């Protein structure tokens, strides 16, 4: 792969080399060496001196030189022989050599160039020429060194990139914008059962037939352009397919490239299918359970309804015949027996009123077909007061009623509601206090209609507040008549109207029953 497509892993490389380069000076004449040294010192490079070919060879084994100056005429091993040996060694095979010679001879020149000399300098040496020639080689050497470092840095960068690629849990495929595979990690081999070499240069569509168009990839997502977690089919070498999830992101590097990460989604798909199955099963069970509950709820309601009706007949008999007995046989009974007869009659009547209340409760809580209509709440309250006329005049209750709104509702339920609440306010009056009852209304923030019935009665202990709306939950003894179902009826009525009911109370001072009805009732 080409290093040009690894833009994000590069490391900084110094733009120039600050180390000094080395120069080798070789001459059997020490004075000449000192003279050369004096000329080249101003270049600021490290100068190494050798007085023989052998010494020069030894130094070449240990150092890299930007260039070497070699005296041609030396005893034992002359400059050419030395150059030949230096050239023969790998480390120094490309080191530029400048020969120093006292006389011009074509033969010498040819031999020197044959041996790889890059230049000849004739004695007497002109210092400026020597300096500028050597400086050129120093510069060359520095540039070479810089290039080498950059190359090494790039190699390391690429190694890192490959390591990341290999460590990825997904198959990673880099393609050009036409889908031709430039690079793939080993996970790609194992996922698609190919040898990697065969993949390079082929189109990614052989792995992902539905690989999207470059236009789709270039659509910008919130985190930049690309395609995220697209579910497609992956195609293996043997043409079997598997569910795959791909993520594609483009990058620019010496052209347009795309990284496609491919994940085997088999387990994910199986898990999703499992969840769907479990959900379906769950929904089915909930539906079955709901039907069961509705059935048993229905059965219970029918039972309650039937019981309240079937008990009515024998109860009526008990009351009627105890009354008949009182009429025909009272003289024959002693006081004790008369009291017993009274118990029979009173309890029969109580049973009757309980059954009646129960029927009413069932009637109210069942969704019936009473019509929704515009209801004048003032008229409803007046009707409730008319029905309660006896109790009101008996207790001389003072009842104040604000002007109330017209609302869309079910009149019979509203009547039940007001009548029970006002009736309760009278019934649970405090001893020695004339009932003072106020009916008010307001609008809630959400447009709902808020009503309140406030009294100055005995109030409700905090611990009883949650029970007051339950069926047959009477909090008071026999000195307060009632079936204990009135507030349950209120609650059932309010709930059928889509609202809610609650109570505030100070024991000994009075209670305020509130109820809220939604503005727009769904019919």
């Amino acid at each position, binding site marked *: 792969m080409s290093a040009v497509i690894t833009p994000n892993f590069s490391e900084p490389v110094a733009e120039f080399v600050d180390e000094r380069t080395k120069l080798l000076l070789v001459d059997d004449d020490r004075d000449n060496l000192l003279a050369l040294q004096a000329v080249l010192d101003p270049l600021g490079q490290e100068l190494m001196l050798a007085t023989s070919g052998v010494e020069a060879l030894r130094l070449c084994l240990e150092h890299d030189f930007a260039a070497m100056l070699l005296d041609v005429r030396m005893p034992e091993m002359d400059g050419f022989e030395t150059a030949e040996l230096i050239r023969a060694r790998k480390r120094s095979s490309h080191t530029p050599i400048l020969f120093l010679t006292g006389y011009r001879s074509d033969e010498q020149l040819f031999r020197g160039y044959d041996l790889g000399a890059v230049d000849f300098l004739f004695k007497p040496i002109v210092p400026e020429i020597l300096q500028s020639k050597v400086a050129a080689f120093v510069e060359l050497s520095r540039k070479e060194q810089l290039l080498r470092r950059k190359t090494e840095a790039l190699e390391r960068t690429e190694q890192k990139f490959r390591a990341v690629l290999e460590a990825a849990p997904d198959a990673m495929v880099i393609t050009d914008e036409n889908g031709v595979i430039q690079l793939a990690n080993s996970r790609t081999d194992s996922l698609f059962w190919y040898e990697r070499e065969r993949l390079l240069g082929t189109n990614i569509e052989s792995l992902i037939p539905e690989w999207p168009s470059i236009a789709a990839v270039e659509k910008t997502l919130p985190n930049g352009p690309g395609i995220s977690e697209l579910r497609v089919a992956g195609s293996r070498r043997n043409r079997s397919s598997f569910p795959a999830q791909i993520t594609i992101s483009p990058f620019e590097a010496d052209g347009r490239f795309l990284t496609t990460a491919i994940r085997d989604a088999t387990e994910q798909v199986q898990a999703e299918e499992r969840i769907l199955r479990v959900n379906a099963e769950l929904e089915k069970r909930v539906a079955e359970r709901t039907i069961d509950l509705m059935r048993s709820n229905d059965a219970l309601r029918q039972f309650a309804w039937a019981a309240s*009706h079937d008990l*009515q*007949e024998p109860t*009526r008999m008990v*009351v*009627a*015949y105890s*009354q008949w007995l009182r009429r025909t046989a009272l003289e024959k009974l002693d006081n004790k027996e008369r009291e017993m007869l009274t118990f029979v009659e009173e309890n029969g*009547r109580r049973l009757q009123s309980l059954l009646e209340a129960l029927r009413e409760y069932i009637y109210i809580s069942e969704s019936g077909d009473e019509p929704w209509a515009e209801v004048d709440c003032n008229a409803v309250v007046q009707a409730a007061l008319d029905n309660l006329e006896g109790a009101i005049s008996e207790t001389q209750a003072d009842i104040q009623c604000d002007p109330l709104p017209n609302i869309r509702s079910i009149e019979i339920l509203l009547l039940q509601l007001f009548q029970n609440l006002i009736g309760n306010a009278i019934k649970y009056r405090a001893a020695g206090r004339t009932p003072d009852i106020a009916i008010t209304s307001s609008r809630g923030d959400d447009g709902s209609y808020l009503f309140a019935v406030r009294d100055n009665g005995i109030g409700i202990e905090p611990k009883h507040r949650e029970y007051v709306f339950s069926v047959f939950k009477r909090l008071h003894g026999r000195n307060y008549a009632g079936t204990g179902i009135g507030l349950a009826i209120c609650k059932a009525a309010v709930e059928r109207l889509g609202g809610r009911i609650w109570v505030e109370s100070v024991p000994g001072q009075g209670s305020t029953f509130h109820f809220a009805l939604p503005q727009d009732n769904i019919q």
Partner: protein
Amino acid sequence: MYKILLIEDNPGDVLLIEEALREASIPYELTLCETIEAALRKVSEFTNDDPSVPDVLLLDYNLPGGDAREVLRLCRANAALSDTRKAVISSSLSPRDKDDALRSGAECFVYKPADLDLFLDEIRTAVVKLLAHSHVCDGEGAISSKFEETAACTDL
């Protein structure tokens, strides 16, 4: 003697109804059917000029084992009973029951109140109303004038 056909399964109510008739001083001859089945049979047996054709039929609306409306329909279908006045007695106050009963041929719908006196009063009033408007009582001015004071039976 007025002939009354009572269809009622509760002996307690039978006794109370008889007491109501006695208190009203209505001379009566009571035939009792205790099941819907017996009532249906009885009603279909009457023929024209049958001396036992009842003047008044009192039908408990909540008899088990059948639909009381069947009895009313059968009455309407039998020409022999065209002069028979029919009242339904029920412990239900349901307006629907009342409508159903009236539609099926009842002329009166009588509620059985829980209180003894109210009960006797209801039955008495209903029977008196029915007799006051029956052809049978046309010739017996004493009774009908006496009844007409209390019986403006709007249901008729």
